[in-house]
């Protein structure tokens, strides 16, 4: 088990004591990565994309995310918090951005660095550089959603070349924050801790196992759920002037916020992992001709719907839009944009490592064996009830047959089939 953990680290984990084996999570998992084993919903490491759908649906809160604790601040001489912009939508009433950021700082951080610095840069570089490259495969797909990226690796490997090879806002912010802090404080890279306050389970996984880069500059991840309570107590006094966010940068993590500021007609923004899958199917089949940019976000509403948020995504979105109204427009100078494009070209904020496909859906590495297994599955399916009840522990009858043919989940039994044959054997009276 420990070996498995190392090979496939996931932030999403099961609290076995709370799991009652209800099958809710089996059904919503977009990659069929959950099986009931001895009545507990176990995650298949290689298939999980950390989208957090299971965390959201579990009525018993048995699915959770591993994040760091506040104690991690003690490991560093100088600490910088990068709160996800979504944090600004979590508080009801008239809480201003500076008030919230001050409350974060009071948790024990030396400095706050806003993720909006990263969103500005991404918009500028995609708009003024990546979109202008005719060689880049269309539609260009956003790299910002780590769950969507893992989904593409597993289910849409043909679309990997379409991914915009630019880092995410937090990662860019982390790099800039660290570089600046080293210059200003004299501490070394290792002495400075950059801590992300995350609404996202998949981002947590990406910090430990980055996609597209060698190493993350984020040193720790706190769950927004955990930070919410700490902040609540700190709100309201000695507010510092901390925010530099602009309208566009604040709206960036809300669905449509990435495509809209690019100033192009042919972009499509889709939220919710199951809808993202449908549209990626269409893109893979060349059915969306002329599409320039695709923004796919696994959570409903975009990052405001993240599994580690407190507020309802629609309310959070409304709140962020109201806050954005009071912010200045983003007006980058040509010089700034030029500098940002240089940063991208130099590799500083670019995805420099190849994003490899992961063929986890295949039955066997050898195609002849695959065909044999497929034939067996086909035969078994004729015999199975096809009602996808999940009682056997697999999400569908087909998945049940696959598991048996692959030699996994050997103890699984189809209870519907057993009952039917039992009824047949009963003497007629």
């Amino acid at each position, binding site marked *: 088990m420990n070996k498995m953990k190392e090979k496939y680290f996931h932030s999403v984990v099961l609290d076995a004591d709370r799991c009652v084996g209800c099958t809710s999570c089996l059904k919503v998992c977009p990659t069929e990565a959950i099986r009931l084993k001895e009545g507990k919903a176990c995650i298949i490491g290689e298939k999980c994309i950390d989208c957090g759908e299971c965390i959201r649906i579990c009525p018993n809160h048995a699915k959770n995310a591993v994040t760091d604790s506040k104690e991690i601040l003690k490991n560093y001489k100088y600490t910088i918090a990068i709160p996800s912009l979504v944090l600004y939508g979590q508080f009801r009433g008239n809480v201003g951005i500076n008030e919230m950021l001050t409350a974060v700082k009071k948790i024990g951080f030396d400095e706050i660095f806003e993720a909006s610095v990263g969103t500005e840069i991404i918009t500028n570089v995609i708009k003024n550089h990546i979109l202008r490259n005719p060689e880049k495969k269309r539609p260009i797909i956003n790299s910002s959603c780590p769950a969507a990226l893992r989904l593409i690796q597993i289910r849409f*490997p*043909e679309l990997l070349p379409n991914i915009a090879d630019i880092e995410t806002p937090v990662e860019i912010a982390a790099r800039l924050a660290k570089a600046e802090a080293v210059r200003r404080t004299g501490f070394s890279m290792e002495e400075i801790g950059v801590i992300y306050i995350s609404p996202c389970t998949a981002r947590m996984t990406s910090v430990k196992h980055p996609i597209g880069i060698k190493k993350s500059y984020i040193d720790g991840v706190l769950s927004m759920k955990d930070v919410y309570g700490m902040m609540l107590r700190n709100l309201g006094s000695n507010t510092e002037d901390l925010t530099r966010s602009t309208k566009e940068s604040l709206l960036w993590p809300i669905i449509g916020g990435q495509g809209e500021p690019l100033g192009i007609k042919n972009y499509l923004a889709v939220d919710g992992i199951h809808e993202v899958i449908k549209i990626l199917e269409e893109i*893979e089949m060349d059915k969306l001709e002329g599409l320039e940019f695709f923004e796919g976000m696994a959570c409903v509403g975009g990052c405001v719907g993240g599994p580690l948020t407190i507020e309802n995504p629609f309310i959070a979105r409304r709140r962020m839009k109201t806050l954005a109204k009071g912010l200045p427009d983003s007006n980058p100078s040509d010089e700034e944009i030029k500098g940002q494009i240089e940063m991208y070209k130099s590799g500083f904020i670019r995805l420099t490592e190849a994003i490899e*496909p992961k063929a986890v859906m*295949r*039955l066997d590495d050898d195609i002849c064996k*695959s*065909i044999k297994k*497929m034939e067996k599955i086909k035969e078994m399916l004729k015999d199975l009830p096809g009602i996808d009840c999940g009682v056997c522990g697999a999400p569908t009858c087909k998945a049940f047959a696959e598991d048996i043919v692959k030699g996994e989940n050997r103890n699984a039994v189809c209870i519907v089939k057993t009952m039917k044959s039992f009824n047949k054997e009963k003497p007629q009276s």
Partner: protein
Amino acid sequence: MEDIKYVFDVKKDDFVRAGETSSKVKKILRELGIDSSIIRKISIAAYEAEMNIVIHSTGGQIVLEITPGVIRITANDRGPGIADVELAMKEGYSTATDRVREMGFGAGMGLPNMKRCSDRLYVTSSEGTGTHIVIEVDLKAGEQGE
């Protein structure tokens, strides 16, 4: 010899289910571990064949056959058949009604796309008997799509 065959019925004018067959084909090929560029070619070709049956025919079947060397899609419909196959192979040529075109189908790219996405394409058709299309893509190593 290991090979496997799936048969799917395709109904005329059923635009709600249109595309389901090619999605199923794609899923099967993915599970078999076929190279993703080949999966893409086959599923585009299967989609075009499926849509041709939905739009132009009175109904038919799509058959998927997989052997270790070749993937074959066969599309059979019950008519009305193509009067001039050579003309139908031309990009942009279509007999689709305005209604169908409004919905974004019938651009006259069906057969040309099938040709583009296959290693071999055989079309036999005559008015009154229906259309029979065979699309083949080779699975030999090193022979991978565009």
